[in-house]
């Protein structure tokens, strides 16, 4: 028996629909944890990284 026979018999396109629900739940979880107030500070230094000033216009 081939894998396609097994998948056809199991109607596995439901997988994709289940994945959609999981993705939506994961998204909600990521939103909540990312924006918890206690996680604010660690990202402050990272915000400033592009502004290191090592590519100023060279004044001749």
């Amino acid at each position, binding site marked *: 028996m081939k894998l396609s026979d097994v998948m056809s018999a199991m109607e596995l*396109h439901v997988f*994709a629909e289940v*994945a959609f629900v999981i993705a939506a739940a994961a*998204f909600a979880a990521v939103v909540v*944890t990312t924006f918890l107030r206690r996680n604010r*500070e660690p990202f*402050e230094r990272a915000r400033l990284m592009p*502004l290191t000033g090592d590519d100023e216009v060279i004044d001749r």
Partner: protein
Amino acid sequence: MTERIERFVYDDAIVRMFMLATLVWGLVGTLVGLVIALQLANPMFNFGLPWVSFGRLRPLHTNAVIFAFAGNAIFTAVYYSSQRLLKARMWSDLLSRLHFWGWQGIIVAAAITLPLGLTQSKEYAELEWPVDVAIALVWVLFAVNFFGTVARRRERHLYVALWFYIATIVAITVLHVLNNLVVVAGPFKSYPIYAGVQDAFMQWWYGHNAVAFFLTTPFLGMMYYFLPKAANRPIFSYRLSILHFWTLVFIYIWAGPHHLHYTALPAWASTLGMLFSVMLWMPSWGGMINGLLTLRGAWHKVTEDPVLKFFVVAITFYGMSTFEGPLLSIKSVNALSHYTDWTIAHVHAGALGWVGFMIFGMMYWLLPRLFQAELWSRRLAELHFWIGTVGILLYIVAIYAAGLTQGLMWRAFDETGRLAYPDFIETTVRLIPMYWVRVIGGSLYIAGLVLLGVNVLMTWRARPARYAEPVHEAPALTSARAAGPAAGGAGWAGWHRRWEGLPLTFSVWVAVAVAVASLFEILPMFLIQSNVPTIASVHPYSPLELAGRDIYVAEGCNNCHSQMIRPIRAETMRYGEYSKPGEFVYDHPFLWGSRRIGPDLQRVGGKYPHLWHVRHMQDPRSTTPQSIMPAYPWLARDHVDWRAVGRGVRAQVTLGVPYPRDTAANAAALAKTQGQQIAGEIVQQGGPAGLEETKMVALIAYLQRLGTDIKQTTATAAGAGGPGR
């Protein structure tokens, strides 16, 4: 423990090279776009020449602006910002140069092969297999150089721009390889391993994600780096950028099937594509808001600085396009918009507004830094901004109007329930004034590019005799520092901080996000038999029909004609029975098209006599007054390559197409016999003699076969019943 301080110099020469290539290919790509815009406004601009006919030039335009203009801009941004964010010179100067020259060689190869009609036909993946192999090799060089630089960085933390670059490198590798798996049938000829529905699915999984991971993620990286630099303010919210990144990477990859609503694609895949497309609105607008709010307190600078003007308009277009994209993915909206100019307007709002203006903003910001001289003319840059903006608005307003006009006319019924505009040409002629407005808008945009070119040239001329190479210092990233604890944070966000210092782990998670989402769609699509119910009366193409199909592909007919009738009343009344998945099982590649500049051809077989086709292709205006189709006189002169016919059939056999053994062995002879029969019928109908070995006859053989299989007998479903929807 004292930290060892290291000194290093950035490689800006490679950035200058990519930036100049961006300008040159930007001009070439948009000029080709102007030529094809003129061809749609008036077909005389096809000049009766095969190499510049619309079907061959359109893919050259899209490839040039995506992979040459945007591609070189991406590399400009990556090479400039990565070195500074990682505090390291690129890992290998040699790899940088090989990458640059290899990529330019690929672009030149595209500029030669596409006008010659050497194409795989799949949108944004037209280039034939030798060029695809070269793309893969050069992309690997780029990836090795990038990750080599990451490995020897002096900054532990990877800034958000770098995450977007990593996602681009990982995802494009997967997309390019999986959508270009082919069986080779000649030096510049191949057939995809997928057929029909599955080929369409793979193509639009690729096509939409090419937009995602070539025209979006690297440009978001660009936004997250260059916007704070230009505004001299940090990004509004780093946490929002985390959300933006992961949701975009995970969700985008599912959205491709929305390009195939109401087609023969199974409905579950189509619905899934729609749902994820609608969800994409959230991360996209999160990114847009993050970009615009970065300018809080700095809006006064926008009035003075052309760089910020370009960035603000670009990000606004990003917001507009990413609102419109989910809107267009909703099935009921898509039923109106699909195959019309609405999609073209949407694409150009994104390409000219978002991609183009991000590039121009970046270039104006880089010019004084890379050429170490003051920008030659700020006023010229301001002028570029304004005529570019007006050009975009003229272009998109005209083409939105054209798309809506077209869609509404196609589906309009009169009071008796018949089509209000049964003749397709009526709906084409109505658009011509809007096509001329597009020509004006496009010309203004190109004029802006020329002004940029003048500014680049004059700034370059003011460069120093020898570029200064500032030496930078930073503590070495020892293994202890690299593996050190993250800078605090609790829960998931704390883990994310750790990943941001662990590039390998980070890249693996990006690959997992891309792969998992892809597999949830791809595996059921390929492994569930009921997705494509077979039809007993559908047989492989005859050798001559296959040769004709190859000519259809080479001439780019699929750029204007669809072969997919949706189960919508206005379509079945206009074109005939709706398309079934089982009708395409031998179609390597699928040719459903994405645009109807001309009518659908799925049921054109037997609709007209052979002679009508001869006259139509020699002079479309002789059979359809006011037609904007190019003439194809060379098809009546050029002969079929009979050896290629044999190679083509053998390649199809390799792909599993069930040709009888003697068909493959005698393909050329069988094709010649059918050619003589059709040529004889053309003469009987009062047409010219001597066409039996020409490409014209092969193409007619293919067109007369289209859509006729299901008329042979009553369709018999093997496997699951029903049309799979």
